[in-house]
């Protein structure tokens, strides 16, 4: 692909800065993303962790430029690929980035594939359209890719329609489509949530292999703290549209710095908790049309005090410099037990 104007090879691969997204609906303005910050390097896996509705998918859609507009609008912030702010690009260039540089796979593979074309045709189309390949060459590449994602008998299955594949195989086909044009960034939005654990293990193993081979940056969106512990290098924890904590995976599990992260980790059933009550986070996540004043987590937080109900904590208290850790909490030192 021809180089984007302004691309700086030394700039971070992907950088999201102070991203705000809102949905203007009949029942009010839902503030789905309220200042998300994170970055991604080549070969790295960043997990975005959070409960449903906290803005994970909307963030991904904003990066991809596939936000549902209206009612969804990016109202503030930057999304930089190698230094270029994607939000400022005209739509045709955005589309090229989407195909060639940043790709995405979704939870529901069936809805992302076209039911009326064979898998081989859909894959081949990518090569014909974006690489100007002949029909025969495109087909060869399609088979090659299905092979890479470990579809057995790829030569035969290339002629099948999406509904003829099982859930796990469809997910493989979608991975093949996303990787067809060798993107540098892959965003996987709950790629295994709908699958059985045995199939999940296959797919996560495949993603890890492909990522290593290609030195791709991977953003894994999930609510499963087991999956995160297994594959992530770094984690960004989201709550009510904000990244509330970011840290390397080992640090966050060993010593969370934000009360929400800590409460999440404590609510997982563990072996030594058998026969005891699980710890719970009281209450519910806020309605995004009516986010609490001060710190959004304050009504549910065990550490909350007056300051939390008045002043929102700044975007990123530096928890430590080496490793790089931040937390959006006035009292993170207390949470760390310092």
């Amino acid at each position, binding site marked *: 692909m021809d180089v984007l104007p302004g691309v700086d090879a030394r700039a971070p691969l992907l950088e999201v800065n102070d991203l705000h997204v809102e949905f203007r609906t009949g029942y009010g303005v839902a503030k789905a993303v309220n200042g998300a910050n994170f970055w991604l390097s080549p070969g790295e896996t960043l997990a975005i962790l959070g409960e449903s509705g906290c803005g994970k998918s909307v963030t991904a859609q904003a990066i991809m430029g596939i936000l549902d507009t209206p009612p969804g609008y990016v109202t503030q912030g930057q999304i930089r690929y190698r230094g270029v702010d994607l939000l400022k690009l005209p739509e045709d260039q955005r589309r090229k980035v989407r195909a060639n540089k940043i790709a995405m796979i979704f939870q529901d593979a069936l809805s992302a594939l076209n039911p009326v074309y064979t898998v081989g045709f859909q894959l081949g189309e990518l090569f014909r359209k974006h690489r100007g390949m002949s029909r025969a060459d495109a087909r060869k590449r399609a088979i090659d890719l299905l092979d890479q994602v470990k579809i057995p008998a790829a030569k035969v299955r290339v002629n099948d329609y999406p509904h003829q594949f099982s859930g796990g195989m469809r997910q493989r086909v979608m991975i093949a489509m996303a990787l067809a044009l060798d993107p540098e960034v892959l965003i996987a939005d709950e790629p295994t949530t709908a699958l059985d654990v045995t199939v999940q*293990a296959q797919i996560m193993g495949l993603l890890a292999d492909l990522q290593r081979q290609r030195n791709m940056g991977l953003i894994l969106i999930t609510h499963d703290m087991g999956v995160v512990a297994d594959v992530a290098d770094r984690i960004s924890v989201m709550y009510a549209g904000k990244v509330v904590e970011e840290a390397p995976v080992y640090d966050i599990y060993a010593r969370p710095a934000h009360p929400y992260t800590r409460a999440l980790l404590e609510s997982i059933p563990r072996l030594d908790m058998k026969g005891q009550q*699980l710890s719970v986070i009281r209450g519910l996540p806020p309605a995004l049309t009516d986010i609490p004043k001060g710190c959004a987590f304050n009504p549910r937080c065990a550490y909350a005090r007056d300051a939390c109900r008045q002043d929102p904590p700044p975007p990123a208290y530096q928890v430590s410099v080496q490793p790089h850790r931040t937390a959006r909490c006035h009292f993170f030192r207390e949470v760390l037990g310092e």
Partner: protein
Amino acid sequence: MSDVVLETKGLVKHFPITQGIVFKSKVGAVRAVDGVDIQLRRGETLGVVGESGCGKSTLAKLLVGLETPTAGSINVRGEDMVKLKGAALRRARRNIQMVLQDPYTSLNPRMTVGDIIGEPFEIHPEVVPKGGRQRAVQDLLDTVGLNPDHINRYPHQFSGGQRQRIGIARALALKPEIIVCDEPVSALDVSIQAQVINLLERLQDEFGLSYIFIAHDLSVVRHISDRVAVMYLGKVIETGHDQAIYEQPTHPYTQALLSAVPVPDPRLRGLRDQIVLEGDVPSPANPPSGCRFRTRCWKAQEACAQQEPLLQIRERSPHPSACHFAEIRDVVRGR
């Protein structure tokens, strides 16, 4: 044994596969549940796990009478539910209730919470006299941790976790001894999931309930279960105390299933003895001969295709296991 509250023997449910529109002819059968023997004791929780499509929900529906078995018996307090009819059947059904997975679609959106929870009283008017029903419903709301004043609200005015509490209150209305929970927390977020699990455990202690607890999250099942049954293609392939199943599994399928569960501790990354199964579950309309797991089993031998392994205690399996070569392998060490 006297403390067994529910027992199934040879329970089977085949769904016919038909061809033709006017003159339907049977061309085969989906063997959703294919010979299941389980026992549930008073006050205990039996966890049921297995991959999607292995027959868990069908088993649940058979137990509560939402499906009629093709063969087999369901004994509750010494009576075979399959043979009961009329008033006797209705009385027996009262005793075994169900909580469903999806808190968003399993409640009628046009009924108030009071009507939803009180509906079982319409079907079984003998349980609470008409004048006492509102009070009974409010007590139930209070029992499951909801505000009794919200009796006239509609389901959409509640969150997912709260709706699941409504479903639980409804299941409790007829004071059953047994509750079958089909994926009761699967649609909920972790923080809410913990609230509902704690509630179920409290109610069990308070009312001496017995639970059949179906879930695909193996750590949730481990937390709540006293015993566990592992299903594969319509059959129970291993069963035992939770510790036996989780720490000393002897069936290759159980071992693979457990080893695939990611552990929420990054220090154990790469240290797990992970068994990655190839391929998918075969179709229950046409299960493999002999052992049903043999198409994905790394230990399969000639004998496995010939002879079906029975669910029984074996030389190297101290608890029942349906594998000719059952043998303990601890796949979750360090957890």
